[in-house]
C-alpha cells in the first residue's frame, strides 16, 4: 500500500495541473458522466470496498452513507479543481473514523478503489474512441491522483494531530512537581524517560524551583523501570541545572537492577546525592532544610 501512495504522490507531482481552457469541455463531459452514473458507480464502489474487506469497523449502511458523501465531494473536486472542500471533508471524516480504529491503508485503499471504479467506467464508455479516452484520462488521472493524495494526507495529518495531543496529555499527567514542605519539592517520575520527556521534565522542574523558591528537590525514580546511559545523563543534567538555580537534588528509589546497570555501563553519578527510598529522601531533605520531625508522644513529657 505504501508504494501505491508513493506512486500517487509521484504522479501528482510529475503531472502539472491541467490547464482549464484545454480540458474544460472534456472535464465537463467526464463530470456529467460520473453524475449520471452516480448510483451505479457508488454501489459498485461499496461492493468493492466490502469485497476488499476495508472499513471493517463500520457497518454496511455507514459505509454506504460515507461513500455517498465521498463520491459527491470527489466529483465536485474533479469539477471545480479546488480541494479545500474535499480536504475539510477528509479531515472531518478522519476525526469521526479514527476513534473507531480505521487504519491509514483502509482510507487510502477506498479512495484508490473509487479511482479504479471510475476509471473502469470511463474505459467501458469510451473504449471505441481511443483518442477521446486518452483525452478524458489526461484530465481525469492527475485530478484523481491529487484527490487520493489530499485525502490520504488529510487522514494522516489528523491522526498525527491526535497522537500529538495525546502525547501532550500523557506528558502533562506524568510529571507533577509537588511541594511537600516549604521549599521542598518532590518530582515522582513514572514510566519511560525519552529525551523529549527528559527535557520537558527538566524545564518543568526548573520553573517549579523558581516559583516555589525551592531549596531541596527529591526526584523519585521508583516508577522508572529501566535506565540507560542517555537517561542517566539526562538525570545528571537535571541535577546540575537545578543546582545552578541554587537547589539541592536528592535522587531516590534506584532499583537494584538500575543500580547494577549504571555501575556496569560506567555512568558517573558521583555528583548526585542518592538515598534508598522516598522516605529516606524526604528525611534527608528535611535535615538539609533544618526540620526535625518528632512524634507527639516524645514531645508531651517534656512540655
Amino acid at each position: 500500500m505504501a508504494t501505491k501512495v508513493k506512486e500517487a504522490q509521484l504522479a501528482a507531482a510529475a503531472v502539472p495541473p491541467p490547464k482549464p481552457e484545454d480540458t474544460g469541455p472534456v472535464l465537463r463531459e467526464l463530470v456529467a458522466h460520473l453524475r449520471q452514473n452516480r448510483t451505479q458507480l457508488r454501489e459498485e464502489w461499496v461492493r468493492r470496498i466490502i469485497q476488499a474487506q476495508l472499513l471493517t469497523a463500520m457497518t454496511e449502511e455507514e459505509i454506504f452513507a460515507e461513500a455517498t458523501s465521498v463520491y459527491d465531494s470527489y466529483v465536485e473536486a474533479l469539477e471545480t479543481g479546488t480541494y479545500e472542500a474535499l480536504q475539510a471533508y477528509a479531515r472531518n471524516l478522519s476525526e469521526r473514523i479514527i476513534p473507531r480504529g480505521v487504519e491509514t491503508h483502509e482510507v487510502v485503499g477506498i479512495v484508490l478503489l473509487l479511482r479504479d471504479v471510475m476509471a473502469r467506467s470511463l474505459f467501458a464508455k469510451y473504449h471505441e474512441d481511443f483518442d477521446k479516452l486518452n483525452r478524458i484520462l489526461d484530465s481525469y488521472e492527475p485530478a484523481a491522483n491529487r484527490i487520493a493524495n489530499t485525502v490520504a494526507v488529510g487522514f494522516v495529518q489528523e491522526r498525527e494531530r491526535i497522537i500529538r495531543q495525546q502525547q501532550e496529555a500523557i506528558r502533562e499527567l506524568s510529571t507533577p512537581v509537588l511541594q511537600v514542605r516549604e521549599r521542598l519539592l518532590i518530582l515522582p517520575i513514572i514510566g519511560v524517560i525519552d529525551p523529549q520527556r527528559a527535557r520537558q521534565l527538566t524545564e518543568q522542574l526548573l520553573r517549579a524551583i523558581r516559583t516555589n523558591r525551592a531549596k531541596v528537590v527529591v526526584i523519585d525514580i521508583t516508577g522508572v523501570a529501566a535506565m540507560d546511559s542517555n537517561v542517566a545523563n539526562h538525570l545528571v543534567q537535571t541535577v546540575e541545572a537545578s543546582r545552578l538555580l541554587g537547589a539541592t537534588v536528592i535522587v531516590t528509589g534506584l532499583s537494584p537492577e538500575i543500580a547494577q546497570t549504571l555501575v556496569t555501563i560506567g555512568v558517573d553519578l558521583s555528583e548526585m546525592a542518592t538515598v534508598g527510598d522516598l522516605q529516606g529522601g524526604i528525611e534527608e531533605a528535611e535535615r538539609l532544610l533544618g526540620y526535625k520531625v518528632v512524634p507527639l508522644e516524645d514531645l508531651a513529657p517534656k512540655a
Partner: protein
Amino acid sequence: MEVPILKQGDYLIASIQSALTDADLSQLREALVERVGRFRARGVIVDVTALDVMDSFAVRTLRDIAHMARLRGAETVIVGIQPEVAFAMVQLGLTLKGVATALDLEEGLAFLDRLKGGRIDVERHGQRRIDHGR
C-alpha cells in the same frame, strides 16, 4: 557597559543589567578581584537575573571570579540564573563546578550570612575551648 559594584556590609554585589561583551566581563573580573581586597569583603554576589544567554566565556569568567575571590578571602555566589539559561548551560556542559549558586539575591545573602555565622561559631567554639584550658 560597566557593571556597577555595590558594597553592602561585608559583601560586594555586582548586578549585571544587560548583555556583556567579553571585554566587559574581563573588566568585571578585574574590578571585583581588586575590590575584594580593598573593601576587605567576605562575600561576593554576582546577580545574572537580567542575562538570558550565557556563553562559555561568561561562564568561565564567573568561575574564575569565584576562584580568584576565594584566594583573596571571599566566597562568591552566582544568583538569579534563569531556568532556560540553566538548562542551556547544562546541555553545553557549562556547569560552574565548585561555585556556589542561589535562586536570587535574597537567597545569596542568606547563604553568605550562614557561612559567616558558621565561621563565627567556630571562632567562639575555639575560644571557649581555650577558656577551658585555663
